[in-house]
């Protein structure tokens, strides 16, 4: 294996592949060996439009990738319904996996991924739910670990996007279809916010939650195109240690833009606003008066590049922290699944260990 220039294959040739995965790969220590999509014409167009080197193989299935030499990792940028099957097959074929979020469509799929990781020791999988962990999140986590917040008692996530969703703007209709996307803005952007919050707080265990969704805005889709994901999710969740989380996620709302995470503790409050992703605000008392202090994060590599740089170090035997791992992804999916179920049943749900 070439540890200085390991090989990677990119699966999926859509928007996220072009805008995020490919630039990250090209800036990383990895060499792009193949691009893959179910339709050959689509892959060839992608290769042409992205000016990829002639040596990059064009594949239409994971099987074709697996026949290539020098591919140590795959980067999965396909719709969510294919995440679990592709991840499991790639792991079982000896490849490290980087996979878009949401990790899977269901906790049972996540458990199958966990089983694949367990039977393939030495391989890694990381999901891109961790995209918001960069910027100010590590500094915020450090503040929590150092006890600067005191005891965290209230967290709040707000994602309000008063704009059209991708699928309304001529994007792929699967984005608005539960069977393919797993859910709406909560399953999509909500995963970033949940991952960042859990990362900052050290993955606290949720105990019970109550959620409600709203679906009812017209989609503008042509007749016959299914749009069955939620427009708005609201929830209140209780965690171990007396922590509560309130959350709102919506990409269709008649309101101002909101994109923030707040964590209130007995000794201080952290405010992260994605309008300034490298900055967090810490609010605490100084001489009896609330004072706000900025936590500026240093400039860092874009997410995909950073993940691949760390994976390259892993291949050399080092142990840098990777993105959302299989167990964290399972936890996020369980939380999301419980929220959707709570909303559907109109009642509070308890975490499995609580219910037991």
């Amino acid at each position, binding site marked *: 294996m070439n540890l200085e220039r390991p090989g990677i294959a990119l699966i999926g040739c859509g928007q996220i592949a072009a805008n995020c995965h490919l630039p990250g790969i090209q800036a990383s220590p990895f060499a792009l060996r193949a691009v893959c999509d179910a339709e050959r014409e689509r892959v060839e167009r992608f290769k042409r439009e992205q000016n990829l080197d002639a040596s990059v193989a064009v594949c239409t299935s994971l099987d074709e990738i697996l026949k290539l030499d020098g591919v140590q990792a795959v980067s999965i940028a396909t719709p969510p319904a294919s995440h679990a099957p592709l991840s499991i097959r790639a792991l079982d074929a000896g490849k490290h996996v980087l996979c878009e979020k949401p990790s899977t469509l269901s906790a049972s799929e996540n458990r199958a991924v966990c089983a694949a990781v367990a039977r393939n020791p030495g391989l890694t999988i990381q999901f891109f739910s961790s995209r918001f962990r960069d910027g100010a999140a590590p500094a915020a986590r450090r503040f929590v670990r150092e006890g600067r917040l005191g*005891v965290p008692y209230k967290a709040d996530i707000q994602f309000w996007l008063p*704009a059209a969703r991708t699928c309304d703007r001529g994007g792929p209709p699967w984005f608005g279809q539960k069977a393919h996307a797993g859910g709406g803005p909560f399953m999509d952007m909500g995963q970033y916010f949940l991952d960042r919050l859990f990362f900052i707080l050290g993955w606290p265990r949720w105990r019970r939650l109550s959620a409600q969704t*709203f679906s009812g805005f017209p989609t503008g889709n042509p007749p016959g195109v299914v749009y069955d994901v939620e427009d708005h999710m609201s929830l209140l969740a209780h965690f171990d240690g007396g922590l509560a989380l309130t959350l709102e996620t919506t990409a269709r*709302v008649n309101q*101002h833009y909101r994109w923030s995470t707040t964590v*209130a503790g007995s000794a201080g409050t952290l405010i992260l606003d994605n309008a300034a992703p490298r900055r967090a605000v810490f*609010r605490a008392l100084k001489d009896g008066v609330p004072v706000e202090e900025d936590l500026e994060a240093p400039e860092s590599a874009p997410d995909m590049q950073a993940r691949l740089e760390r994976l390259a170090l892993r291949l050399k035997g080092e142990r840098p922290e990777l993105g959302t791992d299989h167990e964290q992804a399972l936890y996020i999916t369980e939380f999301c699944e419980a929220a959707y179920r709570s909303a559907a049943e*109109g009642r*509070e749900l308890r975490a499995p260990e609580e219910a037991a």
Partner: protein
Amino acid sequence: MSAILGLGIAGAYDAQRLRACVEAGFEPRALFGSSAALAREAGCPHAGACASFEDLLARADVDVVALAAPHERQAAQALAAGKHVLCERPGALSAEDCAALVRAAHRHGRTAAFACARLRAGGFTSLARQYLEAGRLGALYRVEAVVHGRPQGLDPAPDASGLFEDFGYELLDQVLDLLGWPRVRTLCAHQAPEPPGRPRHLSLFARAGRGIALSFEFASGGLLRPRHSINFLGDRGGLLIDHAEGGRGFSFFEEAPGRRAKLLETKAVFKLEPCGSILEAFREHLAEGRPHPGTTPEQMLELARWRERAAEALQSDREVLCV
């Protein structure tokens, strides 16, 4: 009934509150629990001290009894004696107490009002009511009310034993009244642990009738940025009332083609009416037949139910089914 209403006051009032009664058009005539010297200081020379609450009720020149502190028995007694009742902050009145007062008010044909409606009087609230009543938001699906720090214009309640008593009733009254007092199906609650020195923070999340998710955040003494805002989200428009200093004021957003919310207008017309306006409105209601200024006993009963359900949800560590 004469235009001037004789007022009997029970409980500890200060000179400022007595003066507010006078300015609202009441004539304080009897005091129980406050001294006659205080009345003279407040410019109410005709107000004499009573030896007992019963003596106060026996006064024929007392039309209205103002209770400085919540007292279910005194309120019921006053209604039974043919007096109208104005009750200051309701404190720990139970739903059972409130239900008894609803019955007593009906039985004796007298009016009772609770002073929880202070936030209804603000200009933003009136404006929001116009938008809601005109149906400009379409079907409501989400209402979120957040208060971090005591709202402007509300004094701290001296006997506040919890966030409901501090300013929670007022915020609930403001929102529930705008929504037409929807029925609540489920309620869950979270309260920050409260060892000494910890901030107080209460979160309520309810599924209300008509498919509305309704939440309240009350925080006092914490390190959150000050906020006092209410969001109303509908499938045709959204409203934001933002009372906080430096806030956005009043905003209405309308569903627009292309699915991008369009901000139609922002008006800075907020003016929280002082406490006196409720007294004045109550006098106008009694003397001139104007609408009840709120909060009615039926509404107070609903507020007390919210408080009891929240307490039950906190104590039982589970969501409470309300229907």
